């Protein structure tokens, strides 16, 4: 069975680590987000059926640099996460400005506390 590794990293190290993985021949498989007390971003990469994940914890106010400069097709994931969870991902190559999904509520999957503030 192929391996699954999850490395927790600091948000600042994201770009460097991603570039490293790209150089090693990894393919970006998915970017996932979980919202609990903060936002947990998981960048999953695949090489020869091994899954390698980078994990970072951010708050909705922390700016996260987009990795779309390294993996061009990351723009869809990043737009989705920004719209549904309210993560502040900046410098996305193809920026939809919150118009990818047509949702009536802003950041419907976002952190609960934040949602209450948004409702005001």
């Amino acid at each position, binding site marked *: *069975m*192929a391996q*699954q590794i*999850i490395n927790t990293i600091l948000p600042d190290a994201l770009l460097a680590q991603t570039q490293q993985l790209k150089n090693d021949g990894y*393919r*970006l*498989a*998915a970017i*996932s*987000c*979980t919202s*609990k007390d903060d936002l947990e971003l*998981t960048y*999953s990469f*695949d090489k020869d*059926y091994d*899954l390698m*994940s980078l994990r970072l914890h951010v708050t909705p106010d922390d700016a996260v640099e987009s990795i779309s400069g390294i*993996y*061009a*097709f990351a*723009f*869809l*994931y990043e737009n989705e996460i920004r719209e549904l969870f309210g993560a502040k991902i900046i410098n996305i190559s193809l920026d*939809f400005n919150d*118009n*990818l*999904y*047509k*949702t009536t509520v802003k950041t*419907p*999957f976002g952190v609960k506390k934040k949602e209450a503030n948004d409702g005001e």
Partner: protein
Amino acid sequence: MGNRTIIPFGPQHPVLPEPIHLDLVLDDETVVEAIPSIGYIHRGLEKLVEKKDYLQYTYVAERICGICSFMHGMGYCMSVESIMGVEIPERAAFLRTMWAELSRLQSHFLWMGLLADAFGFESLFMHAWRVRERILDIFEQTTGGRVIFSVCDIGGVRKDANAQALDKILSVMDTLEAETKELTQVFLNDSSVKHRTCGLGMLSGQDAIALGAVGPMARASGVDLDMRKLGYAAYGKLSFEPVVETAGDCYARTAVRIREIFQSIDLIRQCVRLMPEGDVIVKVKGNPDGEYFTRLEQPRGEVIYYSKANGTKFLDRVRVRTPTFANIPALLETLKGCTLADVPVLILTIDPCISCTER
């Protein structure tokens, strides 16, 4: 320099039943750029996991999409089973594999029909769907549902197929193979069909990797990527090789799917032959705690199921990365340079499933 026009394509379009909207920037007849927007059927099914407990969510997961419904349920069950350390009975693994391959068959037939419809070959469309009906009948006979089977459960499968039903499947496979051979040679050899698919929407192997394409889209460009090689369910015990074509055009994508139909028929025969006796479900106790990424090969490509549990009966998060989501960037790239009339055919060759994409 011709006239630049922007033509809105979708979400309601005569040949494309999927609600995706594209803004096509045209230079005369040629597409220069395509900008997608989705979200017409976003139902928030991933969020529903906080309201439905992990056993109930099985039924929600398989309703993400009507075509790969079985594999959605299976992916969700596999991820929860991996978290809980549940080992499913061997017969259940084989049954799952068999139903998964039957799902792939019906999905590919459905897609063949839609492709024929997109290039205006109505009778071919009807015949592809006629053949598909045989598979839906197998589903109804063995699981009780034609589209949504509700047969996958955490710990195994909820229904067993008896020897009689398995024999029936084998005999249907024989007729199906003959009919498919007759039908698919139209797709592969007919010059009017080839005229619409050959050389259209070229995607090189390098581009396929760089754009993150998965499934038949990547395999038609020579990228050997098939999650079934991970050996989940019973795939580890079956012999098969991923179907790979190298041309990277619409014809190659058609050829990959058609060869996969014969591969699936072969895999179903292997499954029935190797099917062990025994239970089909184990009782699951307690609540899951932990997280897991499950990857499996749907008809459209690799799907990723990420489940995160916290020890209660409600999961924290279920995240589904569907194949169409991964294939959209590749689609946008291949659209550049094609003519407006070819857009529907091109979109169909990625086999889009927007219901999956938006959840």
